[in-house]
């Protein structure tokens, strides 16, 4: 047998093996939470801590007995922040282990693609802190849940904070605010709200896009130097964030005037810039870096002390790790709520979990019991409001760690709600979806 024919035979065998094995598994008795992660590629530095926090929370819940006795099983799939890989992961995982309960894509691009598919597959999409801003309108977006906030909330809170700093909204007139954004659906999301606020208060909004992956920012920052805006808003992800800070340092733009969204305000973004990032501010999606939170202590005690943690111990409590914990917690609490209606101790289907997400009520008592006291504010979702809470605060990097530097600010629903409704209505017209009535919500 020649080398070539052996290689051909091997390839054929592999293909046969592939064909037989690419089938769905038999249903199991556990609640399946798929985990779409990116541990490789240009966005890995930010994706890894999130994925570790996500995985650790499920392990913690299992160590405490699961969701009323139902154990959680989780499987990771690498998307590399690419939409087509994300869709492929979705297709592969949606029917495994008895059916996926909820998907959290951690990418606005993948969210947009999956929003088309989940109504048919009946799996809810949880997008805490990202996703489609219009999806807070649950009467149109039945399956999307941007719990804890979306980008219009983020942009609104930032403008409110800046106004507060200046001494009032009227002081914003004539100021220049530039948005440096990742040239993708994620980066473009806040623009409509910023334009609305610019119209309302008379500040000049500059828009500078940065192409993926965002390592080429010299021209962007030379433009910033030319225009000398009063504030720069950073809507970056992955390597783009640290590059922005390095270029800001290289062009001498004061970091104190830079404000990042909650995806541009974590340790990987500032660590290797170190002192050069001192004074940089970013939004905190409810939580910041919380090394003292009770849930962090629980994770360390239950998992890391027994060498069962995902990822390094030093990472526990960092900003994106907490984001992962929080996102997983929201997923679990939604299922727990669904169990209250559909049967305690039973495995919930995607549809049942969807009801749970729509009727989530996490009050302070419950948050304390979960160990999130001081980390999050109480939230409650409803049929019409899939967001649940619209508060955020600002934290600043002091060279060593993130420190909260503002009070809680609430996004102005008077502005956001009509915009969200208009966006949802446009989506409903395009897709020929009828807006749900309150009566339908009771089902």
């Amino acid at each position: 047998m020649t080398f070539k024919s052996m290689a051909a035979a091997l390839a054929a065998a592999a293909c046969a093996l592939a064909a037989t094995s690419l089938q769905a598994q038999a249903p199991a008795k556990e609640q399946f939470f798929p985990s779409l992660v990116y541990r490789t590629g240009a966005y890995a530095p930010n994706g890894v801590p999130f994925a570790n926090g996500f995985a650790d929370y499920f392990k913690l819940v299992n160590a405490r007995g699961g969701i009323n006795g139902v154990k959680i099983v989780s499987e990771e799939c690498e998307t590399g922040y690419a939409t087509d890989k994300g869709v492929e992961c979705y297709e592969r995982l949606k029917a495994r282990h008895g059916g996926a309960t909820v998907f959290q894509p951690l990418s606005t691009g993948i969210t947009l693609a999956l929003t088309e598919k989940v109504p048919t597959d009946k799996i809810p999409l949880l997008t805490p802190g990202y996703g489609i801003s219009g999806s807070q309108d649950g009467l149109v977006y039945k399956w999307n849940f941007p719990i804890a906030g979306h980008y219009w909330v983020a942009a609104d809170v930032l403008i409110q904070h800046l106004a507060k700093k200046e001494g009032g909204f009227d002081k914003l007139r004539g100021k220049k605010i530039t948005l440096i954004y990742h040239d993708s659906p994620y980066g473009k999301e806040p623009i409509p709200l910023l334009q609305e606020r610019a119209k309302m208060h008379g500040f000049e909004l500059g828009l500078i896009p940065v192409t993926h992956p965002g390592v080429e920012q010299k021209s962007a920052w030379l433009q910033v130097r030319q225009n000398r805006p009063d504030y720069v808003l950073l809507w970056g992800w992955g390597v783009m964030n640290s590059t922005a800070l390095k270029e800001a340092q290289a062009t001498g733009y004061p970091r104190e005037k830079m404000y990042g969204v909650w995806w541009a305000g974590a340790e990987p973004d500032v660590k290797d810039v170190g002192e050069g990032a001192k004074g940089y501010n970013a939004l905190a999606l409810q939580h910041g870096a919380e090394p003292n939170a009770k849930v962090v202590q629980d994770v360390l005690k239950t998992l890391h002390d027994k060498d069962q943690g995902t990822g390094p111990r030093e990472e526990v409590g960092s900003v994106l790790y907490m984001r992962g914990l929080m996102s997983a917690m929201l997923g679990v609490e939604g299922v727990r709520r669904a169990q209250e209606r559909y049967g305690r101790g039973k495995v919930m289907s995607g549809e049942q979990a969807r009801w749970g997400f729509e009727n989530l009520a996490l009050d302070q008592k419950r948050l304390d019991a979960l160990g999130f006291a001081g980390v999050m504010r109480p939230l409650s979702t409803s049929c019409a409001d899939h967001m649940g809470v619209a508060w955020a605060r600002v934290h600043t990097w002091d060279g060593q760690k993130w420190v909260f530097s503002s009070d809680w600010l609430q996004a102005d629903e008077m502005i956001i709600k009509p915009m969200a409704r208009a966006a949802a209505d446009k989506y409903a017209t395009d897709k020929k979806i009828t807006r749900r009535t309150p009566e339908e919500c009771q089902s």
Partner: protein
Amino acid sequence: MFYRENGQFKTSYRADQQIFPVRQDRIAVLVLLALAFIAVPLLASEYLLRAVGIPFLILSLAALGLNLLVGYCGQVSLGSGGFMAVGAYTAYNVFVRLPGVPLVVALLLGGLGATAVGLLFGLPSLRIKGLYLAVATLAAQFFIDWAFLRIPWFTHGSSSGSVNVSGLTVLGLPIETPVQKYLFCLALVAVFALAARNLVRGHIGRAWMAMRDMDVAAAVIGIRPVHAKLSAFAVSSFFVGVAGALWGFVHLGSWEPAAFNIDRSFQLLFMVIIGGLGSVAGSFFGAAFIVVLPIVLDQAPAWLGLPMSTALSSHLTLMVFGALIVFFLIVEPHGLARLWSTAREKLRLWPFPH
């Protein structure tokens, strides 16, 4: 013993010039088509169709288009991802702005849009050759990437830059389930493959091959280089554009310009090289290889029972992919199509060794 032409006499030029002159070939192709149209939808799981079948068909159409340009006409193009994007967005704009237009017409118009852009970016090939042309076509890729990100008219005013289509129907039949999508793509690809096969058998294909082998000599004997090169770009872009429209409409449903970025161009070029330059069947082999391989590599650790983090698995996939590409190029630089035709030659003599 089985694959001999004994006893098959051609009594007319027409019979001699037919597309599959050997009867066994005709039977084989009919059996293949029957399997593809009937057996696969019945036997394959929904996941297999969605993750392997449909991407394979659409990408093999794109690879076919690229093969016409690179393999038959010798013009290396790294901008095929961009042409797919043009096809997808043109078809999208027709579909959304002119609601009465049937789906197939929209897809074909997408192809025509890609043809126009392909002709434009093919003009440099009249002056630039070889590797210089390859890198120059990257200008098309990046410019098209940028245009669809920046110009809101192309995305029908979508604020996020992402577009989606739904409610696809052909002659009143819906194209919703994987089986329907698969059959729709299969029908289109079969027609296009037949068209490609006939094109390369005809005088235009011969003109392309003459340009590829020795363009100066071809010009000397009267083949017009402008005509040959631009027609190659035009036909190739049409195929690639229709493939792009199918990719967006049927496979993705919702897409952003990043779906057609430079990685897609490289992927198509890999398909063409691994499958075999200058071969219609080669495009299909290459597409099958490139579509199936990453999925197999991703899931191999699970089958082998090795617990592996997704990061390591991803990295290993990259490494194995790269190594396999190099391996294939060393072992058979003319691609899988050459392996196949060697196998057929052996089959003609079987059971005799020579």
